[in-house]
């Protein structure tokens, strides 16, 4: 089992992006997916960083893929998606329509925002050329076990959501813009004010969600720290770590140490908790039923 770093969900300045991927290239993660996932309007502000980042990551021996957008509606977005294949790296499909631009016979990856809930879907994607599939974070362990075994039998890597705020929903509407009484088309890029999303609490002050433009995330940081052993046993090939603005190299390092057997699960959790916003972790989707729940005790 190894580590995949997923695409950054947030709108960061290009300097921050450059430093982030520079630091990431010095970690021991096996592979990185990068590119704009959430909003095509952001891409022109940081896209010149992508070739530099790809070069640094490949030079450091990492596998690299580029992600599609999570929700493709505009003609401009369709063209952008069609161009991804020309980059020459595997495309990670996060909106099924990206597959229309992947020629038959060209291998591709499938991201956590494609609905892979069962054997029939996994089988169809494998026959179509998928070589690596990150399952949706919502899946319970029983489903993961069935799909990971099938992936192992078919020689296709099955990943699960390992660590990071959960991508819970995607919309046509921009909630960041709405919070500023603006429409998406006149957003003035206010999502850039919140490098890890903007927190949403209930009226009783319960931490609940975080909005990131058109995306809605969990407030809690999902983490499979307590399930690594069982995920290994069922044949999960990799854990996905999702970028955040602070402490991400630490997150990569402690996860690597845990997979190498140099940190126990409680030690891992103790090191991860200070990096999570408000110290809140969850693993309910995998471990139980309610996504927001956490199977470990309070620190």
């Amino acid at each position: 089992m190894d580590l995949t770093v997923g695409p950054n969900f947030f709108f960061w300045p290009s300097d921050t992006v450059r430093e982030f991927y520079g630091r990431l290239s010095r970690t021991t993660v096996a592979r990185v997916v990068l590119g704009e996932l959430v909003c095509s309007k952001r891409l022109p502000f940081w896209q010149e960083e992508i070739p530099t980042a790809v070069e640094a990551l490949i030079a450091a021996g990492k596998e690299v893929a580029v992600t599609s957008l999570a929700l493709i509606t505009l003609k401009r977005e369709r063209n952008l998606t069609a161009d991804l294949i020309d980059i020459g790296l595997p495309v990670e499909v996060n909106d099924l329509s990206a597959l229309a631009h992947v020629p038959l016979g060209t291998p591709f990856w499938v991201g956590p925002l494609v609905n892979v809930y069962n054997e029939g879907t996994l089988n169809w994607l494998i026959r179509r050329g998928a070589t690596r599939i990150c399952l949706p974070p919502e899946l319970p362990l029983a489903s993961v076990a069935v799909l990971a075994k099938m992936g192992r039998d078919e020689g296709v890597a099955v990943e699960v959501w390992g660590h990071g705020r959960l991508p819970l929903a995607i919309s046509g509407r921009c909630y960041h813009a709405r919070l500023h009484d603006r429409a998406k088309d006149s957003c003035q890029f206010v999502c850039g004010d919140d490098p890890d999303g903007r927190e949403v609490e209930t009226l009783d002050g319960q931490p609940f969600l975080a909005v990131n433009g058109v995306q809605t995330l969990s407030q809690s940081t999902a983490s499979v720290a307590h399930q690594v052993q069982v995920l290994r046993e069922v044949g999960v090939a990799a854990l996905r770590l999702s970028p955040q603005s602070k402490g991400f190299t630490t997150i990569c390092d402690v996860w690597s140490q845990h997979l190498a057997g140099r940190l126990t699960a409680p030690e891992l959790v103790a090191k991860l908790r200070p990096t999570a916003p408000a110290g809140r972790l969850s693993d309910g989707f995998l471990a139980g039923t309610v996504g927001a729940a956490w199977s470990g005790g309070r620190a």
Partner: protein
Amino acid sequence: MMELVCPAGTPAALRAAVDAGAHSVYCGFADETNARNFPGLNFSPDDMAQAVAYAHARGAKVLVAINTFPRAGAEPIWHRALSCAEQSGVDAVILADIGLLAHAAARHPKLRRHLSVQAAAANPDAINLYAEAFGVRRVVLPRVLTVEEISAINREVEVETEVFVFGGLCVMAEGRCSLSSYATGQSPNMNGVCSPAEHVAYSEEGHELAARLGGFTIHRTPKGAPAPYPTLCKGCFTSGPQTGHIFEDPVSLDATRLIPRLAKAGVSALKIEGRQRSRSYVAQVVRAFRAAVEAQAAGDPMPEGALARLTEGQAATTGAYAKRWR
């Protein structure tokens, strides 16, 4: 005339919809295979066969939604639903899952396949992919598109398109939302429910009624005031200095006045949400929309305001069909 596709949660609602002028009625089996898996709703295999006979005798069609995502290790439940739908003589099945579409195309090639809104096929590339790979004949468009975008889609696809015009409104791309399972453990994709009633708790606190879903407060209303159902994305929350309906107000969709533009955009069928609704509600809405599509076909103006009192919380929106909504 545009086809009017109407909801039925029970055989009685189906008969009411047909009698009120529905061209097609959509419904589901009483299990986790459909996205309105509520207690006391939906059809047994026998109900379905009788419903088809009733509808066909009156010139109406029956479409069966098998539009949740089959659970790994339990696909035969969904496969049986497909067989049962075909044996009942239904006119089409409405599917969302790739694996189930592939199974239906291989094993039930003569059973007409529609793509559920739960598949969120939001552009021509996606729609054409589903058409080519699985022989899908009609796509229910996700509620993230403007009328202009729907028009552009119809210029690039061969299959029919169907859009929602009335009822509950998802603000997230459908089939791509796990907010409900994050709070309650039950989701539209896996369980066919959103913000399920068994996870709702009301509590009188001072002068307010608090509505909670899975323990998360969704809204507080003054005692005695109408309290909308605590659907997660229509809740009132706080973010920094702001408190309000961060995702969407407790509104429902009413696109009646857009019908002429939707017709011009090439839309084949108009869909009414509400399989959980009563048969009298269904009958009223269907009658009003039948009048509207007849007016559209005749080039007459749209009837105004007939449905205002049926909309949730008395407020209606045209949702994503107007660009400003985004």
